[in-house]
């Protein structure tokens, strides 16, 4: 504690916890992090922990029920599908597709979107008008339709799924980041930086990006869940990951004709999607509340 001779007793406050330090104060969201952790491990360790080859067919052992059903066995803990492929192994491998699609797409879209938002907000005027109309146009285009067009014209593939979703998704980021930048640009420290001789690049990289990072992190987390659902929907429709690669969406689709007799074929991938998406959404909510409670609209 120091006393300022001019101002009387001004005490330098104890280092106050900053936003990122507050992460620990609030207690980490153990359940969402745990679920995500388990699925990430599954994806990484899939070749080691899978009881069988996920693409190996065995028509003699098709539609085996899960182990707790009288007719099931430990050979196939979650049963088999209509081609006799091991469900558990397919779910393990399917988590690779879902997580990779979610993370890669969101990173791609957020990088592009944030760049557009920063440029639009910083330059304003005509640049802003053009970029924002482009954003509006993009947001009005249905993702599923674009993916179907891509699937029909160039054929379904993992790359096409990522591209189709990212090409639409960046617009959300652009709009949110631009809004933040517009607020930041009104603040004196931006003007002060420009007066101190900072050029566009310096203002954007040193002052705008660090101040929009919280928003970006929250939005990225919330969007991963959304992208996983979109990827699953595309795979369900056959416009996503082509067979025989296991993807949760296509697994649900394969089981849908047999729901009454072999419910496990569709149920387990469905549960996997539910758990992962829920975990990412909970984590995103928690990050939002912790980092910036003002971001309720995201």
């Amino acid at each position, binding site marked *: 504690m*120091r*006393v*300022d*001779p*001019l*101002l009387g007793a*001004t005490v*330098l*406050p104890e*280092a*106050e916890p*900053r936003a990122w330090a507050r992460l620990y104060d609030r207690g980490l969201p153990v359940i969402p992090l745990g679920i995500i952790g388990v699925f990430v491990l599954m994806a990484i360790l899939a070749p080691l922990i899978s009881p069988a080859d996920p693409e190996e067919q065995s028509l003699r052992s098709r539609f085996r029920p899960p182990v707790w059903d009288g007719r099931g066995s430990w050979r196939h803990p979650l049963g088999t599908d209509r081609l006799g492929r091991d469900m558990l192994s397919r779910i393990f491998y399917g988590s690779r597709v879902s997580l990779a699609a979610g993370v890669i797409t969101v990173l791609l879209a957020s990088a592009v979107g944030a760049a557009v938002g920063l440029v639009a907000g910083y*330059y*304003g*005027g005509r640049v*802003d008008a053009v970029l924002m109309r482009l954003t509006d146009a993009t947001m009005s285009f249905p993702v599923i339709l674009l993916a179907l067009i891509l699937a029909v014209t160039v054929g379904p593939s993992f790359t096409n799924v990522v591209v189709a979703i990212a090409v639409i998704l960046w617009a959300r980021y652009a709009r949110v980041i631009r809004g933040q930048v517009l607020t930041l640009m009104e*603040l*004196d*420290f931006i*003007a*002060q*930086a*420009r*007066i*101190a*001789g*900072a*050029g566009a690049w310096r203002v954007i990289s*040193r*002052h705008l990006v*660090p*101040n929009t*990072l919280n928003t970006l992190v929250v939005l990225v987390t919330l969007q991963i869940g959304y992208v996983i659902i979109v990827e699953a929907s595309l795979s369900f429709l056959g416009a996503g990951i082509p067979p025989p690669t296991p993807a949760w969406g296509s697994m649900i689709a394969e089981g849908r004709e047999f729901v009454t007799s072999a419910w496990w074929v569709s149920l387990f991938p469905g549960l996997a999607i539910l758990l992962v998406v829920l975990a990412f959404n909970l984590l995103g909510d928690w990050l939002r509340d912790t980092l910036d409670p003002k971001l309720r609209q995201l």
Partner: protein
Amino acid sequence: MTSQTLARPPVIDVRDLRTHLVTRWGTVKAVDGVSFAVREGETLGLVGESGSGKSMTCLSIVRLTPRSVSGVLEGTVLLDGDDLLTKSEKEMQRIRGRKVAMILQDPMSSLNPVFSIGMQMREPVAAYHGLRGAALWRRAAELLASVRIPSPEARLRAFPHQLSGGMRQRVVGAMAIAAPPRLLIADEPTTSLDLTIQAQYLGLLKELQARHHFAMIFVTHNLGIVAKMCERVAVMYAGRIVEMGAVREIFVSPRHPYTQALLESVPRLGAKLDRLTTVEGQPPDLARLPAGCAFAARCPKVMDRCAEAPPELAVAPGHSSRCWLQAPA
């Protein structure tokens, strides 16, 4: 600037500066033919109501007028004889922060909230002094000490939200003098500080000026501060300087009716007043300025001649007024 028989050439010499902004309500003549000059070590006060073009004049000097609107920026702004309005943006970036520094009004938002004071100070310090590492840190601490920030080393690690408004404004002051500027523009730097801190800060600015001999443009609407800080005053109204002269001269014998009204509206201790005098009416719409004197509609001494715009008329050496009252009949 008729006389002032000083040998020193002006640091900043603004001639016929015009900043017109094209908005959807029409062309706003925010700055309309402003001329003034400030010498080394001298302080010019720029006073006027909100929207009279004070801040826009300052922003025009450093060419940082709002970029989202198009418009005109013309005239000459000579900084040590070099016209800033002909510079490229790249050249301007080198001039800003090195030759011209500026302190803005709001200390609450004048520092980047996500970086510590030290992180923000190292930028201007490194850029000007070419220092690195421990030497850079030491120089930053010295600068903080020179603006009377106690325990500067500790403050370098602090974040903006840990400092008071007065303290933050002094940090901004320290950054402004990191590269001793030729011209310091202070745009109402003390508006949001409380009175005792205000007095200290003004004293500090004067002290820094005495040490570094920069020319200063001090924007304010507080005439008390003008009396304390400035050698000369320029009174702005609707984008024009309506009266300019030495502080004493303006305070003792104001010539322009607007200046007179401004001075009368300052409450004085001991004066028996039932109510404060105000300047009647509203400032004009800068997009629809009248052809003649912009103050005519509110002027108590308005006459027929006011339909025609008055030129700048000399009242006394170094004192001019833009009013027909000064014209020989």
